[in-house]
Structures are given as structure tokens and as C-alpha cells.
């Protein structure tokens, strides 16, 4: 059951980490839309930027750079940078 979210890198150790408690998903609850499907690249990027600003107070451009730097290394988004 233990996986790493392909979209944000979060370890998923509990059933509650999976959207709808469905452990066949490869992405976590934070990367799911309300209907349980995985967020798009643009949705995830916007979400990450907002989250960095909210939790760390960083500048918007710096937050964008960090979000992209992070996404570049994740299986779900790698291809968007090649």
C-alpha cells in the first residue's frame, strides 16, 4: 500500500492518503480533484504556487520557480519539461 505520489512526491502510507480511500491510485488526496481524478499540470502548478505563498510567504515569481523545480522531478510531470 505504501507508495509515493507521482504528482507531488508525498509518501502515501495510510488509506486516508488516497483519493476516495482507493489505494490503486498513484496520486494522493492533495493532487485529486473533488471528483477523484488527478489534477492537470496547470492546476497542480497553480496550487503549488499558492501553497508556497500561503505557508512560506515567498514572492510569486520565486514560488513559481520552486513549483516548477519540484514538478520537474516528479514522474507525473517530467515530460512537460523535456
Amino acid at each position, binding site marked *: 500500500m505504501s507508495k509515493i505520489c507521482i504528482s507531488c512526491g*508525498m*509518501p502515501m502510507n495510510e488509506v486516508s492518503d488516497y483519493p476516495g480511500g482507493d489505494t490503486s491510485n498513484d496520486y494522493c488526496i492533495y493532487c485529486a480533484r473533488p471528483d477523484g481524478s488527478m489534477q492537470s499540470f496547470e492546476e497542480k502548478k497553480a496550487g503549488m504556487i499558492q*501553497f508556497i*505563498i*500561503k*505557508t*512560506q*510567504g515567498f514572492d510569486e515569481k520565486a514560488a513559481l520557480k*520552486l513549483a516548477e*523545480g519540484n514538478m520537474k522531478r516528479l514522474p507525473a510531470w517530467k515530460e512537460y519539461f523535456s
Partner: protein
Amino acid sequence: MPSSKRQQQKENTRKKIVKAAYQIYSQQGFTATTATIAEESGVSHGTIFVHFPSVNELLIYLIQVFGDTLAVELHALSESNSVKELLIAYLDVLAKHEAFYIRLISERSLLPEDVQMIYANILSTVAFHFNKVIEREIDKQTVKRIPVHMVFNTWIGLLHYYLLNKDFFSPETSLLERYGSELIEVFLELIRR
């Protein structure tokens, strides 16, 4: 030689390099050369590059392993525990990697950008878990209603100030062993309602 044995030997060599690199970088900083790391790990200089094609990859690997340890620890706690429990677990992990972490925060701007990204990502992960716990405590009215990023930055500011000036605060012993619980107590006192 059977391939499984060869595989095992390769794995052992990699572990030796990783261990030596971690020690050398912790002691000497990130400007330490791969020649020094090769000498410390008892392998030839070229062997390092068989396992890590570039210094960047070695650095990324080491920082990522440290970050993963921290992430797993915090993830397990942030679901239901208090901010105090989170901070204790956080400093426990940092205390085990104190010298390495001080190098990371003091030499961060000297590192290549893709390596810096790994550090930034670790910080964001800590902020993520911190935010989860702090928001819950703000809702329960056990923590003052301060913007979460300022609560986080106040904590990091305090912690990093002590770590960056370890030579003044605790030159001979572990800084976090000496001041960790005091930093936690004082910070909690500041944010509690």
C-alpha cells in the same frame, strides 16, 4: 563472479561513497573535492563517477535522502499530533544531521541551482506539515491567529539563527542537544493563546 555477488559489491561501494561524502561535506562543507571523498571512502577517484556521473548528482542524492527521512517522520506526525510533538520530532531528525544541515543552510547560495531546489523542496515539505498542525491548533484556539507563513518563518528564523551561529552558542557540543528544548518551549510560549 556471479552477478548477484558483483551487484552486492557494487552496492557496498556505493554505500561507502555515500557515507564518506556525507561525512566530508558535514566536516568541510560542500566545496570539498571528490578526491577527498574518494580517499575517505577508500575507492579510486574514477569509481565515484561510475556511481554518480556528476558532483551534482551526488549532492542531490545526499540532500534528498536527508529530506526523505525528515518527510517520512513529519508525515507520520502531522495528521493528529500537537505542534509541540511535531517540533520535537523535527529537531530529533535535525539533531542526527546537525553538521550536515548547518552546511546546507549556510552554504545554500553557493550550490548549483538544481541542488538548491532540493533544499527548497525540503523546506516546503516542512512548511506543509507545519501548516497542517498550526491551522488545526488555530481552529482549536490553542494558537494565536497569526498568518501561518509568519508562524513558520518565525520558527525557522529562530532555529536557523541558532544553527548558523553555533560557534557562538555551542561551539563544543551539539547545538540542538543544548538548546533544542528551550527553543521549542519559547516558541510555543510566543504563539500560544
